[in-house]
């Protein structure tokens, strides 16, 4: 069932407001989940559960929030930066996220900044319209 990007954004906004207890106007497109909206581990799970319910589809947590497993793999991270292999892995897992800025300095501390509201909207839009 196709949905317009606006429709997807509105629903994602609703999910984030419920899961994170923030206000509507805090959930802007560029807002980062961890930095701006205060999300952490348990919230990621809550977001996944609610997205599944809102959009009627399974959302493997790995697909939406892959960084956690990446960060602990020594082949993919070296000296606090993603290796080429790590970057390739990341690109593979998050086709819905723009990595051009991140690639210039793949510092793993900056990984959380990739988790923006836009990234979620991109992911959901792709999944919903692929069906």
């Amino acid at each position, binding site marked *: 069932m196709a949905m317009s990007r606006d429709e997807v954004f509105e629903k994602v906004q609703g999910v984030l407001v*419920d*899961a994170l207890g923030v206000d509507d106007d805090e959930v802007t497109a560029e807002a980062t989940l961890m930095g701006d909206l205060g999300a952490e*581990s*348990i*919230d990621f*799970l*809550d977001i*996944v*559960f609610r997205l*599944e*319910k809102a959009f009627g589809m*399974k*959302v*493997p*947590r*790995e697909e939406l929030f892959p960084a956690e497993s990446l960060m602990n793999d020594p082949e993919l991270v070296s000296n606090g930066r993603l290796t080429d292999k790590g970057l390739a892995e990341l690109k593979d897992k998050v086709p819905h996220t723009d990595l051009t800025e991140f690639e210039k300095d793949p510092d793993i501390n900056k990984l959380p900044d990739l988790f923006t509201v836009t990234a979620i909207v991109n992911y959901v839009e792709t999944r919903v319209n692929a069906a």
Partner: protein
Amino acid sequence: MRWIWIDKFVEFESGRRAVAVKNVTLAEEHLHDHFPGYPVMPECLMIEAMAQTAGILVGEARNFKEKVILAKIGKAAFFDHVVPGDSIKLEAQIETISPEAAGISGKITRSGQLIAEIELMFSHIDQNLAGKKFPEENFVFTGMFTSLLRDVVLDRRPADSPPMESGG
């Protein structure tokens, strides 16, 4: 003061839904502090009663293999207060369950009147909380809790059948 906030299960549908009862009585010491002169059941303990009802439901759904810990109270709303002599019913329903966590919705009623609506998230801490130290054995589900289940007729699935899962 024992840390057990439900008295018995009256309904138990494994993996789906459970209903427990808690009687509120002047015999409970803490009521005399909350408040001196007019005892009411603290709202936080009503949340705990729901957490215990739901926690046992979630734990049983995974055969008590994991330590199920309250990680987040999504929402708790109270519509009236509860006093000694009251008996409250706690109804919990599994909304989602995965290897790492579970989401529960619940409501508390007193003689059919809605007292509270509560949404909780539990974490299965063996799968989470990397780096935090805690003992290996399952300290969450002790004899105290499993004996609450003895009186309820459980439609137990065989031990090796997969638990309900979604996501992750």
